[in-house]
């Protein structure tokens, strides 16, 4: 029989529903994660279920004591999520857009990420922060950011970036069951993308990259939505007689160096596709690892395809020019031969 298909958002919703059913310590909080708090005629039901509807229906099933709408006080409620995690709950906090992280950055950088270490291991922070990231929505400079490189830099934080509905469900379940601070990145344009998703709960271990396509002539490491650009590029490259292997790290911290190094050992060529701004980003992180530990495998320079060192422009013509795409990936790959 055909596998069940869910879209990205449905997969995320199911992951949270199943985990909240399994473990009463799991709670959800954020701005309008339900919506319509204290609105009588809604009778406790949600008005929004999150700005993109990802948490729709959860308040109906679990009630307002476990699905909490918050004021626009990100330092307050992200810090509260950290404090709740340290004292025994397992919160899933929604930070609407990753671009807003600046208003609560300290509670992640200096509290959530460092408490365990500063306290000599006596505390743990089982917290998941879900957030929307990425361009293509014409949402302009503040609402189209990527920023996972900033969080990958921070010891004590784990960073997860799914590229398919299947990975989204499995990685979110793993994040909720994980005992550390996890920041879970959801691409703003992939919500409606469909794919096979098993009904029962399942985990995808952190630090295990997924080879989305086997190949022999070059390795393309791509993150999140970039995986789909890379897959398109691979088709084009195939036509030109070049077989590309596509690796999706799925988690950036921890990062699966081994799978990447093994692939480069086989192919001798590497292109990294990362939607971030180019400086100190994930692409440079991976390139540095390979330039050290995989230097002897390389037959060509390491190419990175990233967004330019400019904020994200609003106008569609500019944003399309700004973002990485299959054509840019193909060009970078061909430059290696």
């Amino acid at each position, binding site marked *: 029989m055909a596998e069940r298909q869910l879209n990205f958002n449905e997969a995320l919703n199911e992951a949270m529903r199943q985990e909240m059913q399994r473990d009463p310590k799991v709670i959800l909080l954020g*701005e*309008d994660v339900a*919506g*319509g*708090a*204290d*609105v009588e*005629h*809604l009778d406790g039901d949600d*008005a*929004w279920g999150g*700005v993109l509807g990802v948490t729709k229906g959860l308040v109906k099933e679990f009630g307002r004591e476990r699905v909490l*709408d*918050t*004021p*626009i*006080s990100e*330092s*307050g409620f992200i810090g509260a999520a950290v404090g709740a995690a340290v004292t025994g709950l397992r919160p899933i906090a929604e930070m609407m857009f990753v*671009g*807003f992280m*600046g*208003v609560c950055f300290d509670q992640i950088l200096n509290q959530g990420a460092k408490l365990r270490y500063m306290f000599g291991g006596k505390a743990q922070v089982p917290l998941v922060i879900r957030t929307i990231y990425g361009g293509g*929505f*014409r*949402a*302009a*400079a*503040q*609402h189209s950011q990527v920023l996972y490189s900033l969080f990958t830099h921070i010891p004590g934080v784990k960073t997860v970036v799914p590229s398919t509905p299947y990975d989204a469900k499995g990685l979110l379940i793993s994040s909720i069951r994980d005992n550390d601070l996890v920041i879970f990145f959801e691409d703003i344009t992939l919500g409606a993308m469909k794919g096979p998703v098993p009904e029962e709960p399942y985990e995808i271990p952190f630090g295990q990259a997924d080879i989305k396509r086997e190949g022999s002539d070059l390795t393309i490491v791509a993150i999140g939505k970039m995986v789909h650009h890379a897959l398109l590029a691979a088709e084009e490259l195939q036509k030109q007689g070049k077989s590309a292997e596509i690796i999706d790290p799925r988690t950036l911290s921890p990062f699966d160096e081994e799978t990447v190094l093994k692939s480069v050992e086989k192919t001798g060529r590497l292109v990294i596709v990362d939607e971030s701004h180019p400086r100190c980003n994930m692409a440079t992180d991976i390139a540095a690892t390979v330039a050290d530990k995989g230097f002897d495998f390389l037959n060509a320079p390491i190419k990175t395809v990233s967004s*330019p*060192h*400019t*904020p994200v*422009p*609003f*106008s*569609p*013509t*500019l944003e399309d*020019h*700004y973002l990485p795409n299959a054509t840019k990936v193909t060009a970078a790959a061909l430059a290696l031969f």
Partner: protein
Amino acid sequence: MELSKEQLVWMYERMQVIRVFENRVKVEFGKGKIPGFVHLYAGEEAIAVGICTNLTDADYMTSTHRGHGHCIAKGVDPRGMMAELFGRATGTCKGKGGSMHIADMDKGMLGANGIVGGGPPLACGSGLTAKTNKTDQVTICFFGDGASEQGTLHESLNLAAIWKLPIVFVAENNGYAESTPAHYHCSVENIADRAAAYNMPGLSVDGNDIFAVEEAAQQAIARARAGQGPTLLECKTYRFFGHFEGDQQTYKIPGETEKYQNEKDPITLFKDNVLSRNLVTAAELNAIEEQVNAQIEAAVQFAEDSPFPEVEETFTDVYVNY
């Protein structure tokens, strides 16, 4: 102080420009002409216009994600604004900013802001500039009821208070932050009640009554210009449309919007008031309406006819030099 006929005409014209602009943006957004997010100001016109009645281009303003009305009231050209929303090269920000980032330094408009609570600290900055340069420039800082729970507001109110900065903090309390009612997210009934926590005057007025807004603003602005420090002015209002285009608004009480549109439309209230007092004639108001409709029609045409920016523009304006 009595408002001159010139001022009354200006007020009506500005409110109409905002209303017609926003209604048209809604239509064009529906047609897919305007990309991204748009947050409409319709229903709240009396606040921006009432506040700006006593300002000049030299005065500063910080705004929010719902900034079209603030821009228009401060004198930003609707043609450039519409072109900006359309993402065109002729836009106020060359099409680089869009709805949430319209700014016009020549008008003292320091920018709409996609970050809730992002504006108040910036307002302290323009206030500090005016104080340091010993000018009488005032800064207006608009923020919503939802933004009043943001820490940046608290820090800015305290900073403005201890430095006696020439700022008027204007809380636009439209009853909701997205789908969340103010009576849930805010621990006090009136945001203005928080003024006492900073030892500054606080006042709560009917934000749909432009005369009430103008009068309160006039005093706060005079106080700021005189170097007596900031004021927190709350204007209670209501947004006629959703939080952003696409919002189903199931959180609104059934009939709530209609009630406000029928009984509390700031433009209707103004019209009834000035006509009943024979301060302006119906003919004069009609003339304004026609002129405004033509102006917005022309603005849309201008936007439609304008080119998209050259792709090279992607890389400019990041730094002055690099």
